[in-house]
């Protein structure tokens, strides 16, 4: 079925098709319509799930903890301040190995006061043990939610997954989306089986006893192994998905026109589409540029990056977020440390699109020209460039 839906609605369809048992969510801009869509589906009887209209995000995730321990497949979504209120149960979701799927409709963190897009919320919690997937368009939102359940519930993984979609640029953007058939989704996604941790009077165990350090270290190691397994499992999940639904997303990182590239751009989220357009344009000028769309930010696909960037002269990373303290974009510094001791291209970090600012074709075009200059001079004069603040390199975003 073809429908015109916004990103929030696409996520709701993805959740519905995955047949969750319990949904708990608290509305927050720009995720609010997602909760409304799901609530409407439940109210109309199209989605048979327990819907818990909680009083806070903290409770939203907490309700899912209880439900998952009782064996439920669960769904929630949040954004920004909601995610930070969730931080306490957020960390615990992964450390209890509960395969919750949660959309983060990414948004800036306060302050200054802002309700607009930016990936600051989601990237800030990157070390809390979840898997994080960032998507480019609404079809990918829907498909990735379904994939997220397969990934989360894989016995080699058993970890919660965030599907991160850019606030407004995806959440409120409507476009054509193919809604998969329920039969196909059922074929792709088997029912959830939780038997390694559960609350059931028929088999009384305790969940989360006080744990001494040695044993805790063991759990941490297992957790990290689960995350590492997720890299391989996700490739298989994506490929399976492609076979059934005809849409394959190239797993953790999608390379675009990288075959003979000397310059590479790295992007995450909705800006990737704009990057495709501008890479094509630059290719018309004869620039050997390609780009890598980072989908799986956590676990960070270090090995794949090393392979894909082998022999590349210059890498530019556009981040819709900042890493306070490392003083660059977050993906930039993660990538930089991943490449350490391997082939190390010249690298520059571009910070753009904060607080709902558009990342325009003009922006991406400017980044590519900047990277060309680095390639010519073989020098990185400035490692971190704030796109809208540095007049000398900023072409007006009106440039088409």
């Amino acid at each position: 079925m073809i429908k015109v839906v916004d990103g929030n609605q696409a996520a709701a369809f993805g959740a519905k098709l995955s047949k969750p048992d319990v949904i708990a969510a608290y509305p927050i801009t720009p995720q609010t319509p997602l909760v409304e869509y799901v609530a409407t589906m439940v109210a109309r009887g199209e989605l048979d799930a327990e819907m818990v209209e909680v009083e806070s995000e903290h409770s939203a995730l907490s309700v899912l903890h209880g439900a998952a321990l009782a064996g439920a497949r669960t769904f929630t979504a949040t954004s920004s301040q909601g995610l930070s209120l969730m931080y306490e149960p957020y960390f615990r979701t992964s450390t209890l190995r509960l395969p919750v799927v949660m959309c983060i409709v990414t948004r800036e963190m306060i302050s200054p006061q802002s309700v607009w897009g930016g990936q600051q919320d989601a990237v800030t919690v990157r070390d809390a043990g979840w898997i994080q997937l960032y998507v480019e368009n609404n079809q990918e939102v829907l498909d990735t939610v379904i994939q997220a359940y397969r990934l989360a519930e894989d016995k080699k993984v058993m970890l919660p997954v965030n599907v991160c979609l850019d606030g407004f640029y995806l959440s409120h953007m409507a476009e054509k989306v193919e809604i998969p058939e329920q039969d196909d989704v059922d074929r792709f996604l088997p029912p959830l089986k939780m038997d390694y941790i559960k609350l059931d009077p028929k088999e009384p165990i305790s969940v989360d006893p006080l744990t001494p350090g040695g044993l805790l270290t063991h759990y941490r190691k297992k957790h990290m192994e689960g995350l590492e397994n997720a890299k391989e499992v996700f490739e298989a999940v994506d490929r399976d998905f492609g076979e059934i639904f005809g849409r394959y997303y190239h797993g953790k990182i999608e390379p675009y026109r990288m075959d003979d590239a000397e310059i590479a751009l790295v992007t995450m989220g909705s800006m990737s589409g704009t990057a495709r357009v501008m890479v094509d344009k630059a290719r018309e000028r004869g620039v050997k540029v390609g780009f890598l769309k980072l989908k799986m930010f956590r676990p960070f696909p270090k090995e794949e990056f090393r392979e894909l960037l082998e022999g590349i002269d210059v890498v530019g990373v556009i981040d819709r977020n900042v890493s306070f303290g490392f003083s660059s974009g977050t993906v930039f510094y993660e990538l930089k440390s991943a490449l350490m001791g391997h082939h190390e291209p010249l690298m520059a970090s571009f910070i753009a699109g904060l607080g709902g600012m558009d990342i325009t074709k003009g922006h991406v075009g400017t980044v590519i020209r900047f990277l060309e200059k680095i390639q010519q001079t073989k020098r990185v004069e400035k490692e971190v460039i704030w796109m809208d603040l540095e007049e000398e390199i900023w072409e007006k975003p009106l440039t088409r």
Partner: protein
Amino acid sequence: MIEIRIHGRGGQGAVMASKILVSAAVLEGKHGSAIPDFTFERRGAPVKAFVKIDDQYIREKTQVYTPEFLIVLDPSIKTAVDYYEGIADNCTLVINYPKLPGDVPEKVKTIGYVDANKITIPLFGMPMVNTCMLGAFAKVTGLISLDSIKHGISEIMEGMKDEMLEKNIHAAEVGYKEAVIVEYKGRD
């Protein structure tokens, strides 16, 4: 690629109109994307929505800065926003106005106007002009057929009461019928 910008006030359905346009385009085998301007959608406050339509999948997720088509649901917002900002050469203006508006920039080459308030107030009890203006848009631009607009209304307004749906489709039909097209040659 065709870029359209819709201006209106919160409550007039600018955002919904943008989605309906995309739905109509998709029915015709095209691709489209609709993004609202990200201000607070308060009733009465000026709002914008951006639409892109193309034969190819639209990859860039950006706003519209140089629209070739401008839909103005409420001309009275012009004291609050400059809805002509950044318009392309050969711009087509579709405006809710009882007569040919004066003071239109020269970049505008075609004007379509319709008194959508007069049509919609009896229907809805308030100037909910979005669907009426889309009917006018279909006639003025010829980009999308009225039938596709009607399909778009049914898809995007799904879940609404049948009666409301019918009224909106009717509004689009009347808007289509009553829109006046003027090839604009600049100021007299």
